[in-house]
């Protein structure tokens, strides 16, 4: 496909080196989105959503794209970046804002791992479908990737100590932290959680955390690597704040605040591939990241 044709059809995306290439066009009703990920054997494949819990038609439309994308990219689990429930947590809310929306994925035995946002009660940690096993913060391992779900609402001494202790004995190849408040953000409404960053960033740097995923801002943003760590914001899973990303922010590599979105991620060896899809099935960002300190050569257009 030529660049001109791509521009006509749907737009462009950039990889980790800033290389530009064509994205897929908007997906018609019923069609599955075009997947740009390699789908390698033995890779760790997952989906990332944040700020979902509205039960709105738009959340369901995004969920439809999530469900359709699984045909070509069979992800095993979903990471939830908080604000899993808005406006109440009665049993009916869990049904309308989560179970009914993601029922096809639950039926396919896709596991959801949640973290808590500022609209979430601590008791969500007991909910079976969030797989928090009663803990506000926890670690899980998938292949050679360790995931750390943190409670950024309440980063107290106990949690900080737990994080230090866990990371210090973690010899996984990849370490990914996911939680609600973004340490770096170009959002106008919220912006960077600098107080949180002061506490967690030194720990992440000390123990070689590779990637941080956060929500809270209702848009998508890929932050330029900060002290070698890759930061992503994926907070448009159920809400959208159009035009909230500050223009010309020195933090932004790629940002998308025109529609709701989610991330697909595949970690294979020393590479992390990602693709961000919108509510209409458009690819709004895509690329590959080499694990810090590895010998993996990052070449453009790997996808």
């Amino acid at each position, binding site marked *: 496909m030529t660049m001109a044709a791509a521009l006509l059809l749907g737009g462009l995306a950039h990889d980790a080196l800033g290389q530009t290439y064509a994205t897929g066009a908007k997906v018609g009703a019923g069609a599955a989105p075009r997947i740009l990920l390699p789908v390698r054997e033995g890779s760790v494949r997952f989906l990332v959503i944040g700020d979902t819990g509205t039960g709105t038609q738009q959340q369901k439309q995004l969920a439809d794209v999530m469900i359709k994308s699984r045909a070509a990219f069979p992800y095993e689990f979903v990471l939830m970046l908080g604000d899993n429930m808005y406006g109440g947590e009665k049993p009916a809310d869990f049904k309308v804002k989560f179970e009914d929306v993601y029922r096809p994925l639950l039926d396919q035995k896709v596991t959801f791992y949640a973290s808590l946002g500022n609209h979430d009660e601590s008791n969500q940690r007991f909910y079976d479908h969030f797989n928090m*096993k009663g803990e506000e913060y926890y670690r899980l391992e998938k292949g050679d990737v360790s995931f750390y779900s943190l409670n950024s609402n309440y980063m107290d001494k106990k949690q900080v100590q737990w994080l230090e202790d866990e990371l210090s004995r973690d010899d996984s190849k990849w370490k990914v932290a996911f939680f609600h408040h973004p340490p770096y953000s170009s959002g106008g409404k919220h912006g960077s959680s600098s107080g949180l960053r002061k506490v967690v960033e030194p720990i992440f740097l000390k123990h070689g955390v590779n990637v941080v995923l956060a929500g809270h801002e209702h848009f998508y943003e890929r932050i330029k690597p900060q002290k070698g760590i890759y930061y992503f914001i994926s907070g448009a899973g159920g809400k959208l704040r159009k035009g909230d990303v500050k223009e010309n922010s020195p933090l932004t590599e790629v940002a998308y605040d025109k529609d709701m979105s989610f991330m697909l991620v595949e970690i294979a060896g020393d590479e992390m591939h990602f693709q961000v899809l919108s509510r209409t099935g458009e690819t709004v960002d895509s690329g590959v990241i080499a694990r810090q300190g590895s010998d993996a050569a990052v070449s453009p257009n790997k996808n």
Partner: protein
Amino acid sequence: MKPNARKLTALAAGLAALLCLSLAPRRAAAQAAGPSGEAQTVAAFEARAKDYSRLREDLEEKLPKLSKEAKPEQIAAHKETFQGMVRQARAGAKQGDVFTPEIAAVIRAVIKSEYAGQELRELRETVMEAETQGVPLRVNYPYPESGELVEMPPTLLLKLPQLPKQLRYRFVGTNLLLVDRENGLIVDYMTSALP
């Protein structure tokens, strides 16, 4: 600045000065007893927090244990029953039972001494960002389920007296609450925690 705004500003400044004057003696009293005086105030506060923690643990043990893979109906039922039991047990609880004037003064002073200038502005921004206007400040009443939580600044949490795991500090505006993280009850609160 318009004349009415000037008058309001002067009035606010006067009220703030009066508030400081009324609070100063309590902290001064704690300080006058030396560093150990303030330490004793903090220790007494932590002891009261632990007393609450023991009370609610004893009551929770009477309930069926909530599974770590529970259904929403089970979570809701557990919370409601637990809440009712604690409310009944603390029927006479009032503001200041845990956040006594002495510890409130100490906490205000800790926040004031640790945060100034840009850091104080950032702290206020973080705290005031949340939409908590509708949260009623009533001891032994539930924090509204639909109410937004303020991100507690981690640097502040490291400086405040430590709480048992079931209790949480929570800002509502400039007021600081103690909230039970499972039954959602407001255990106590103190006003004007932020300078």
